[in-house]
């Protein structure tokens, strides 16, 4: 097991470096002198200042050396300075990560739980009403753009029925901030962000349930005279849900970028909202920093889920 963990970590390191090289390449093949990407509205800057920034970022050195400086800077957490916020990029990103993570984690939990429940019942009774609902969820979940789904939920629940807020997070100033208030603000974003993963989890669980229920060990469990619920939830479910873990982890990058769009719909003040505003302001250091943090983050999170999976499934071979 330890050997496996070590090997997976060692495999992730070159991947992280490659991801950083990709980021570096994008920065350098973009039209124009990269130094101006770091100086907001480059026109007003003095020649002296331009040189100073160039030197600071190591942009006056040969390309190979620049790459090393770039990677070293990333590992030191130096991602540049945003002139709009007047703060280092890493600080702005760090303070918004928890707000975005709350959304991503809750929507993933919701999608996995609801998807597995739906999938189990659909797999247990193929072609029943639940199975049909499952099919409809899958068909819709794959085709609906999540940001439009978010808008539809706002139209239905916030504007027409007027029972949930249109967006934002609770603030103490408005007298909010209670647990219930947080829930009220979270329902719609979590629902719209979770819809694709929900469809995926439900479909995979269903297919696996059908497969697992046909296996010999299920027959023998039934032959032993175990209750049907014990057979389904203790014996079948365990093996049927494992692939869901993999799928959800593979799609984590997708979920993270989905959160950024959903935040725009619901004025959720996390990374996505910041990204949206930075696109609007052409705040290049923030965008570049966000891309670096996200792409490295995804590799690390995939690594963690791989390790969790190995822990959950003893059949994984640690060669």
């Amino acid at each position, binding site marked *: 097991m330890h050997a496996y963990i070590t090997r997976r970590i060692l495999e992730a390191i070159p*991947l992280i470096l*490659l*991801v950083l090289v*990709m980021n570096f390449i*994008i*920065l350098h093949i*973009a*039209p124009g002198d990269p130094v101006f*990407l770091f100086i907001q509205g480059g026109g007003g800057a003095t020649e002296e200042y331009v040189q100073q920034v160039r030197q600071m970022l190591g942009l006056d050195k040969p390309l190979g050396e620049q790459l090393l400086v770039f990677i070293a800077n990333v590992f030191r957490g130096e991602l540049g300075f945003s002139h709009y916020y007047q703060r280092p990029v890493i600080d702005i990103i760090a303070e918004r990560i928890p707000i975005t993570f709350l959304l991503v984690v809750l929507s993933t939990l919701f999608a996995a739980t609801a998807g597995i429940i739906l999938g189990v019942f659909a797999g247990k009774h193929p*072609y029943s009403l639940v199975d049909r609902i499952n*099919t409809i969820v899958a*068909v*819709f979940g*794959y*085709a*609906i*753009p999540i*940001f*439009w789904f978010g*808008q*539809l939920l*706002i*139209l239905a629940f916030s*504007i027409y029925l007027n029972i949930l807020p*249109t967006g934002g997070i609770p603030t103490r100033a408005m007298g909010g901030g209670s647990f219930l208030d947080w829930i009220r603000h979270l329902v719609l974003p979590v629902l719209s962000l979770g819809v694709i993963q929900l469809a995926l989890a439900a479909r995979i669980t269903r*297919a696996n349930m*059908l*497969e697992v229920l046909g296996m010999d060990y299920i027959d023998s469990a039934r032959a032993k005279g175990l209750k049907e619920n014990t057979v389904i939830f203790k014996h079948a479910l365990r093996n049927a849900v494992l692939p869901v873990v993999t799928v959800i982890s*593979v799609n984590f*990058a*997708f979920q*993270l*970028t*989905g959160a*950024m*769009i959903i935040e*725009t*719909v619901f004025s959720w003040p996390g990374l996505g909202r910041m*990204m*949206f505003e930075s*696109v*609007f302001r*052409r705040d*290049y250091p923030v*965008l*570049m920093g*966000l*891309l670096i943090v*996200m*792409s490295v983050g*995804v*590799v690390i999170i*995939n690594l963690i889920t791989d390790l969790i999976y190995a822990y959950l499934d003893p059949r994984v071979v640690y060669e």
Partner: protein
Amino acid sequence: MAVFGLFFLIILVTVAVSANWITEFGPMDTGVGRPLQAPNNRFFMGTDDLARDIFSGVVHGARVSLMVGFTAALTAALIGIIIGSISGYFGGITDDLLMKFCELFQSMPRFLFALVIVVFFGNTIWNVVVVIGILSWPRTGRLVRAEFLQLRESEFVMAAKGIGMSSARIIFKQILPNAMHVVLVTASLEVGAAIITEAGLSFLGAGDPNLMSWGRMLYNAQRFLRTAWWLAIFPGSAIFLTVLSLNLIGDGLNDALNPRLRRVKR
């Protein structure tokens, strides 16, 4: 179901091609009526805040979406075919390296990369197409590779090698035609995915400013959700129905062309 998808897609293509004849106003024409009019006899999808005709936007948006969807999927398919076939046919170290490359692309947050590249390189429609195409090849690449790994051991490939056919000819003339069903199914799903990605980029204000696209209309709708539901309902339905049709066609193709992979579903 696939027939419904095909039917809808054919109508959509017809609408996109004849966009200029079926709409009275251009999609960018402002002040064609009063602003923010609800759907009525004259503007049956209503008007937006600058008094642009929503119907015209939806119809012309079909052009943008279909163009982006098909071109990006084609680009992705071409890259996927080339990398997948080389990887699967030659195997060994070539395969290892190319698959690492593939893994790299798969572990990148694609949408964010697309967004940053489009912002850095300029938000023209062609940049959007190229970026989506370049970022979407891994799915095709992996599937093509899997087919090649299997087919390269088969007798007809042995025979082709035996008569001294070149690798390139074996890859493109012998094996590829047998792997095309995988490419077709994946491509139909990639068209839908590309349409949603383009809509997402436009929704964040990173689309082509000179074209009216469905994502851009939804971006515009966001500010007026409370007062003008029609700004969101019509363009959104257009995206949803288009992607739905493409997915149904993909499912249909999968069932028809590839009995081996047929799902447990009905």
